[in-house]
């Protein structure tokens, strides 16, 4: 094992390979608060990549209801149990803006737990059986209620559920890649996308076993494993629609709830995803304690119990929800870019506009300005321009009854 730095955990951790970050990392921000579980993303992926024979059980993108839903069933609870050493806590008194923005994780990662348990493999894990993959909608819209007689009110509902949108996290330290004894899994230097080489794979299912997010899937027809490919032809700009510009994946572009913004995590503070993730810390990684440094980031749902959310997204939850509830001027502008274009935005600029609204939210003052936010593509060209206030069109009365 070597020691690598995992900024989600705020510390170094053991990993079988040296730290080697891509030039820019495939990443996305999902605003859980807005998802309506319409599954359009799920079908967009299915109809592109997994409609084929032997892939009947495969949903590279899926949306599950928490706390009861899970595809495969109970994947997260089962993996959390495997790394549980009774002290999976966080030390949050000291933080470093760059190296440990959420504090320091004191528990074991999937890699450390395997070493401690002397498993003689790289990470802990398990293979979900076929019946566990069979019902991706299991538990959908089922609420959890601790106090049945109580009505729900913010900030935390006593009766709650929320949707979690999942795909392969194209992790910085992938469990799947570490697990593969044949090095059939590789992470691309140019964009950090993690792929399974279909020629080298021999169907050992070590990746199915050791990906904590359970995103590699075995295909009985070809006897090898497959996983989300991040729609890489689109990322490479090979779809004619965006004229050579990097394009967002099928699941991102199809999102009806406009909850998704895709981009590349890089060092540019004016890159919208980089800003939301690293600078504003509004969006948080899913189960950072697994230790793979996943690259899909979530704005946590404001109504769910905080203890549950802290376990799921780490100690940054409270700050992120506070920020989301009373958004700053810049945050509101960046959040307006969600789903405004399917070309990937590399940089944004805000042109200030007049103040249009003011109120108090949970005792805090909120002011809204009708700023214009502009998104630029890889080539520096403007690809999108929008305002905070959406334009309103009033229908001519003569069309009231027409379709």
């Amino acid at each position, binding site marked *: 094992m070597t020691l690598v730095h995992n900024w989600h955990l705020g510390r170094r951790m053991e990993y079988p390979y040296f730290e080697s970050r891509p030039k820019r990392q495939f990443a996305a921000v999902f605003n859980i608060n807005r998802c309506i579980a319409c599954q359009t993303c799920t079908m967009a992926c299915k109809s592109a990549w997994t*409609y084929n024979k032997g892939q009947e059980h495969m949903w590279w993108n899926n949306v599950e209801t928490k706390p009861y839903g899970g595809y495969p069933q109970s994947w997260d609870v089962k993996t959390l149990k495997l790394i549980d050493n009774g002290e999976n806590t966080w*030390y949050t008194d*000291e933080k470093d803006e760059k190296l440990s923005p959420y504090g320091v994780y004191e528990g074991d990662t999937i890699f450390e737990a395997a070493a401690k348990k002397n498993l003689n493999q790289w990470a802990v894990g398990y293979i979900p059986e076929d019946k566990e993959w069979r019902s991706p909608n299991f538990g959908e819209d089922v609420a959890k209620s601790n106090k049945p007689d109580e009505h729900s009110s913010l900030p935390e509902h006593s009766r709650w559920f929320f949707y979690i949108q999942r795909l392969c996290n194209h992790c910085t330290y992938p469990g799947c890649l570490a697990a593969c004894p*044949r090095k059939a899994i590789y992470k691309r230097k140019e964009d950090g996308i993690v792929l399974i080489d279909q020629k080298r794979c021999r169907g050992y299912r070590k990746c199915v076993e050791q990906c904590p997010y359970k995103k590699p899937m075995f295909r009985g*027809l070809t006897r090898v494993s497959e996983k989300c490919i991040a729609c890489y032809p689109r990322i490479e700009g090979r779809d004619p629609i965006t004229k050579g510009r990097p394009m967002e994946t099928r699941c991102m572009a199809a999102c009806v709830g406009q909850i998704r913004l895709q981009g590349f995590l890089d060092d540019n503070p004016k890159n919208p995803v980089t800003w939301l993730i690293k600078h504003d810390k509004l969006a948080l990684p899913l189960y950072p304690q697994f230790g793979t440094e996943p690259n899909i980031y979530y704005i946590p749902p404001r109504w769910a119990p905080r203890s549950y959310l802290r376990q799921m997204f780490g100690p940054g939850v409270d700050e992120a929800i506070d920020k989301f509830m009373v958004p700053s001027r810049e945050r509101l502008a960046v959040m307006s870019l969600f789903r405004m274009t399917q070309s990937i935005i590399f940089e944004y600029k805000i042109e200030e506009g007049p103040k249009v609204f003011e109120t108090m939210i949970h005792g805090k003052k909120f002011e809204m300005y009708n700023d214009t936010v502009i998104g630029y593509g890889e080539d520096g060209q403007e690809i999108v321009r929008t305002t905070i206030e959406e334009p309103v069109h009033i229908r001519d009365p003569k069309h009231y009854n027409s379709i």
Partner: protein
Amino acid sequence: MIKGFSLFKLCGVTLLGSVFLSMALFAAEETAPGVKGMSEEEFTPTKEVLTVKYVQMDKPYHMDVESLKGAFKDAGAVKVTLQKQDKAFPNGGGSVSGAEVKAIHDGLTVYFQITWNDPTKNARAIAVQEFRDAVALMFPLGSVEITPAEHFSPRMGDREKPVNLWHWKADWEADLLVKGELEDVEAQYPNMHDDFNLNPYSAYYHRELITSVEVLSGGRAANNLLSQPGRGRTVEDLNAEGFGTLTTQEHQDVNGCSHYEEGAWTVIIYRSLITDDPHDVQFVPGGNSYFNMAVWNGGEQDRNGQKNISSQWHPITLERVAWQ
């Protein structure tokens, strides 16, 4: 960890130093990450020699265990002790403790018969949790002399000393028996729904959908032999030059047959003595070679390095043919 963290802040340099030190120690025990070094004993071939008996025989019309069994009657058996694979990550195996190997040749073809006990027959690997039973023979490439002084890794060879492997798979044998020579997902899930109506007269027939199977089946499109229908064989011909390097050959020359009864597998693997593939081991009557082997117990989720191995090479001598 709290202590560790503040300690790191205080004396990061010392800590960093000890990290390098422990990594150096680590390297001494491990030849590569997750790979432990081998003992001298493992570089010494066993004393017992497998004699490949010369037998005059007519090639049976059906190459099955029943028709080939008689030819092995007078061949001497070598007992191979098997153990858990404990050198390269992931470690595993240990459920099969031994196997018996016999070998014959008729001047044209060499046959190896391997028998071992396995209480469960696992001849399908379609469901995610299912793994196949399998056995592999391994031979050094080229003519080599293996001695403790002349190291030749009995575990997958190494970069300078590659090996040829013959890997029999129980599911490949099952594939041979069905239409199209590949058990489809319906074999495992007979009542599943799918959109692929293969009857061109049906109202649901969709040609584009059906032709897309090949393109959108990664393994098939990439020409992975494991994914191909109609392989026409039960044994895969491979090369390796160390852990994790197993590679399917372009040219497949080996075949085999099997029989499972009363908790025991009998597998016969055969190939012509000589081939024109430079990546193949060649057998000359009157000549010598070595073999090593591994058995996978699908019922115990064995696959790849999780297997029952023999940790030493076993010498082979081929009898001369009668007219030599």
